[in-house]
């Protein structure tokens, strides 16, 4: 047997510090909230202590953002704003390795993903949006569209740096200032981004980054002097925010949960479909709102596909996120692990057939072996609820109409996949699937030039592309 020796990326590269502070008005300051300890989910050891915001800190940050908006940022020509944003893109590229290691430490995702996806795509988002800053008149919202003011942004723990980039880059390009709260369990890379922003010499207050839990998020979104709220996270919290904002006139965009169908027809390129299914559900441990968590496979190839899929999943290497050969890293938190376990137990209890990868799991840390449920019906919880973990539910269909009906049979509508070699069928399916992103013969592709966002309870508004600018303009 050929065993791969461990190939860990050195954690020294992360330049981990014992303490991190929040970033307000251009300075790193202590927050008056209860400091939080962020842990490495792969080892359960404490990585650092991070200061958090109190309600009054939120107010200070919003005031700083307002000042920066009124006095500097809204008055600055777009061409000048652009250069600041380009600087950020470049610095992210320069510190890419450090950011990648830090992200994997704090989040638990495999280093090959933070290195090859999260960090480069974060840089790309700044690079892309920088170019818009002085071209907004060409975006289709009139000759001189205006910014909204102060944007309050709350992001999740699954792509900590990337989500910060998705939020901050378009906000700044459109001329808004920002108060952003990173997730409680993954605040570190956002605070290194704050360091980059400081080194890029952005005017104080243009970007403020304040860690904390849900109460800090609520304080930001409900603050009276915030003009725009952008939230990425669970549908449950999204509904609360939309409800709280009712009647305030604040502009809101929500990027919420999903339960995407990945539809495989009998004429699909099978080996690539297997890769797409694996990438669709095991990328980032399945902590992806657009994960292809429901595999819909045409009955005539179900057995063959399932066999190929299991063989492939058995080759997935689960373990140390810093090991360059790790395919599936650690579940982000104990809380999330408990939720995944609870939902998978419900799958068994409701009669689905469970198959678990034979891969060994580390002794400590939060890990969950890749799992596939077959004989799943639409009525089961595992087919309806977002598991947000490495768990795939397999359903079958007989006709294209049935595939569409099952794919759309959910209150969500974030993404969908379709696999077939027949071009006309791809377009037919893409037209009918009620999802904001349809990946055909591929899955989980992201690009700042391509709008991303959901239908129905997966949220509203888009991020990326020309369409994404609307969220940060007064139009």
């Amino acid at each position, binding site marked *: *047997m*050929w*065993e*791969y*020796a*461990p*190939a860990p990326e050195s954690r020294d590269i992360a330049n981990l510090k014992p303490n991190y502070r929040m970033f307000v008005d251009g300075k790193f300051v202590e927050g008056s909230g209860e400091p939080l300890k962020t842990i490495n989910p792969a080892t359960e050891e404490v990585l650092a202590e991070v200061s958090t915001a109190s309600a009054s800190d939120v107010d200070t940050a919003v005031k700083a953002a307002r000042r920066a908006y009124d006095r500097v940022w809204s008055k600055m020509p777009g061409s000048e704003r652009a250069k600041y944003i380009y600087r950020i893109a470049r610095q992210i590229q320069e510190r890419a390795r450090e950011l990648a290691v830090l992200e994997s430490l704090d989040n638990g995702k495999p280093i*090959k993903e933070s290195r*090859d996806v999260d960090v480069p795509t974060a840089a790309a988002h700044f690079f892309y949006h920088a170019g818009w800053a002085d071209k907004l008149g060409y975006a289709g919202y009139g000759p001189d569209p205006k910014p909204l003011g102060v944007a309050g942004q709350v992001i999740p723990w699954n792509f900590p740096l990337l989500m910060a980039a998705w939020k901050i880059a378009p906000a700044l390009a459109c001329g808004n200032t920002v108060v952003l709260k990173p997730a409680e369990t993954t605040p570190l890379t956002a605070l290194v981004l704050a360091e980059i922003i400081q080194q890029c010499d952005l005017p104080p207050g243009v970007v403020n980054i304040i860690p904390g839990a849900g109460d800090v998020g609520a304080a930001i979104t409900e603050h009276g002097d915030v003009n725009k709220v952008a939230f990425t996270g669970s549908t449950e919290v999204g509904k609360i925010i939309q409800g709280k904002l009712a009647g305030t006139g604040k502009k809101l965009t929500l990027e919420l949960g999903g339960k995407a169908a990945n539809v495989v027809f009998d*004429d*699909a*390129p*099978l*080996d*690539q479909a297997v*890769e*797409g299914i694996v990438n669709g559900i095991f990328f980032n441990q399945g902590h992806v709102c657009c994960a292809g968590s429901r595999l819909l496979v045409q009955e005539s190839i179900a057995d063959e596909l399932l066999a190929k899929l299991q063989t492939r999943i058995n*080759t997935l290497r689960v373990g140390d996120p810093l090991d*360059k*050969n790790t395919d599936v890293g650690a579940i982000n938190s104990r809380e999330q692990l408990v939720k995944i376990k609870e939902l998978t137990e419900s799958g068994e209890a409701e009669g689905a057939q469970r198959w678990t990868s034979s891969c060994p799991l580390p002794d400590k840390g939060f890990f969950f072996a890749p799992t596939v449920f077959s004989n799943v019906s639409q009525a089961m919880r595992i087919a309806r609820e977002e598991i947000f973990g490495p768990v795939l539910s397999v359903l079958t269909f007989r006709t294209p109409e049935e595939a569409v009906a099952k794919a759309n049979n959910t209150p969500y509508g974030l993404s969908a996949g379709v696999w077939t*070699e027949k071009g006309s069928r791809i377009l037919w399916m893409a037209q009918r699937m009620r999802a904001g992103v349809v990946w055909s*013969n*591929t899955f989980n592709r992201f690009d700042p030039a391509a709008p991303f966002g959901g239908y129905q309870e997966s949220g509203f508004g888009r991020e990326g592309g020309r369409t994404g600018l609307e969220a940060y303009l007064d139009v």
Partner: protein
Amino acid sequence: MAAPTTLPSALADAVRDESSLRRFLHGLPGVDQVGVEQRAAGLGTRSIKKASKLHAIDLAISMVDLTTLEGADTHGKVRSLAAKAKRPDPERPDVPKVAAVCVYPDMVRTAADELQGTGINIASVATAFPSGRSTMDIKLADTRFAVEQGATEVDMVIDRGAFLSGRYGEVFEEIVKVKQACGDAHLKVILETGELVTYDNVRRASWLALLAGGDFIKTSTGKVQPAATLPVTHVMLQAVRDWKNQTGELRGVKPAGGIRTTKDAIKYLVAVHEVAGPEWLDPHLFRFGASTLLNDLLMQRRTQLDGHYSGPDYVTVD
């Protein structure tokens, strides 16, 4: 059409006649170019270190078909190649010997004499290599000559013209006949994937060669660019894996041409390991057709063991 071995009924049906063969080959699942290239690139980022790297280097050395296929080849050149094959690193007797020496038919006798009793195979290209453009009689005579001269393995080329114009039956028959002419010698079927162009064609040609009885499917002659590539090898590894699932038989894969560095070779071994499976990590089932690769493997082996970088002057140039 005569099937060379007893095939499971589904596959026996596939080779019943020309039209059933066409239907079978065109009924294989398509290959998405972007998907397979991405998968190959992704697996290519595996980081193989320390003991696993040393193991991979020795394994790779034992899989090399040490090749010389030049118009300027001489008996002297072949003799020194054979010496290299037996003792790749004269100062390090623990270095494994290579799998085979691969030469033109007229050099086979020389190689066979040199390698007698070493267990190293003598591979000969045949069938109007590299273009394959000649009559069937000449191709078969070429094959018989190589075997008579002492070749234990024959690397034939398929008629790409016939394949690309859809005359699959013709290609099939040719492989079957060459296989018969080989007798006990192992047959490697060179698809010349650089001329087949698409991955769909590579998959079809792979299955065609397996159905016709090829013991190995081989990417390239080395005379056409591109020669071996990782994604092409992925598609061929999928074919032998699927072949095993359907027939229980193990067939081999040989990428040839363009694999020059240890780093490249390890990427191929990772693909073998994770696409086909660990049982293909065996010189009976996977070969590298290469000439310069061996020296890089030897240099890297020294680096691993000596703890410092080696240089080209410390390995022999044969």
